[in-house]
């Protein structure tokens, strides 16, 4: 009985936090008002203040988490709707994603080698730009730590979304395709969700870039690591 109540409370609480912040975000549209960013901070704060463990929260949270898989499946729908345009755009998307992936993996290795962090941290952060399950698998296969990899993926996702308006401005990326490829390559599904809020074509391009990036990074990450380290 008690666990049902706790579960219900965390589901209703998460939905309430999400929908409130979502409405707020629609009005002010600031990167820091993103539901995933502000919402997660708010929920973490509530849990810490009331000394509730993550496991307790996940009694209900797991129900929402379970829908993450079907939510990713749902991304095929915008892809389908944009299919004719995407066929035309495949070469720019593939080239952009490939060079982005090389830049991401090699800059991760170079910068962390420069600072001098432990090898297992490097292995965990190298696949940060791809969706969590893939990046965990890549990190694990190279000798990284899976939970660390998951954290770096979240930082790349939310950080990328927050930085995106500035990155696009500084590097003069104003084309909807360029922005979509950038979001999907750098910030995987979190970036794609954000791109989808703005524009369906950009979101679909981001979806394609995200899927391609997962495949490309899982091939080039072990190769570049053995080459550069």
């Amino acid at each position, binding site marked *: 009985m008690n666990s049902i109540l706790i579960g219900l409370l965390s589901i209703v609480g998460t939905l309430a*936090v*999400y929908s409130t912040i979502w409405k707020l975000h629609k009005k002010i549209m600031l990167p820091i008002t993103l539901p*995933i960013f502000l919402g*997660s901070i708010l929920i*973490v704060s509530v849990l810490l203040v009331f000394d509730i463990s*993550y496991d307790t*929260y*996940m009694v209900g*949270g*797991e129900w*929402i988490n379970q*829908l*993450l*898989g*079907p*939510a*990713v*499946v*749902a*991304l*095929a*729908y915008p*892809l389908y709707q944009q299919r004719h345009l995407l066929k035309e*755009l495949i070469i720019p998307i593939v080239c*952009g994603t490939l*060079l*982005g*992936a090389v830049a*991401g993996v090699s*800059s*991760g290795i170079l*910068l*962390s080698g420069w*600072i001098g*962090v432990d090898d297992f*941290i490097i292995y965990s*952060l190298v696949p940060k*730009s791809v*969706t969590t*399950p*893939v990046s965990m698998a890549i990190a694990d296969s190279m000798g990284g730590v899976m939970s660390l990899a998951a*954290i770096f993926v979240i*930082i*790349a996702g939310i*950080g990328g979304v927050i*930085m*995106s308006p500035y990155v696009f401005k500084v590097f003069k*990326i104003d084309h909807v*395709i*360029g922005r979509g*490829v*950038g979001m999907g*390559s*750098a910030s995987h*599904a979190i970036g794609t969700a954000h791109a*989808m*809020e703005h524009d369906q074509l950009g979101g679909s391009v981001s979806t394609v*870039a995200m899927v391609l990036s*997962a495949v490309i990074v*899982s091939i080039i990450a072990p190769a570049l690591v053995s080459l550069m380290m």
Partner: protein
Amino acid sequence: MLKISKIVFHIAVLYVIFLFGNLVQQTFNLFVPGSVIGMIVFLIFLLTGIIKVSWIEEGTKLFVNHLTLFFIPATVGVMNYMEIFSATVLWVVGIVLISTALVMAIAGMVSQWLIRKKEFQHE
């Protein structure tokens, strides 16, 4: 009421496809996650007309529009790692952010350059 049951049905369809994707992933021991395999399968079903758009539209739209909601519980999990946020880890977070911005800039610029080149040729 009818709309709600329709949406629940749509979500159930997505869930079954997701489970199928997981099954494919486990059977062939693939590195691509089950959800991504499910997405590709769903896309093939839509393209070949095995699944009609009208069968899944409302629920699917709802999911796509509120995708970030489903990431919140996993993100909250960061709270279990609060204590590792020491000075070196902050450096590492900095590296992750710089590298992420770099990926975004390069991927964006390359694709934009190619697209502009293509649009120019079309004109």
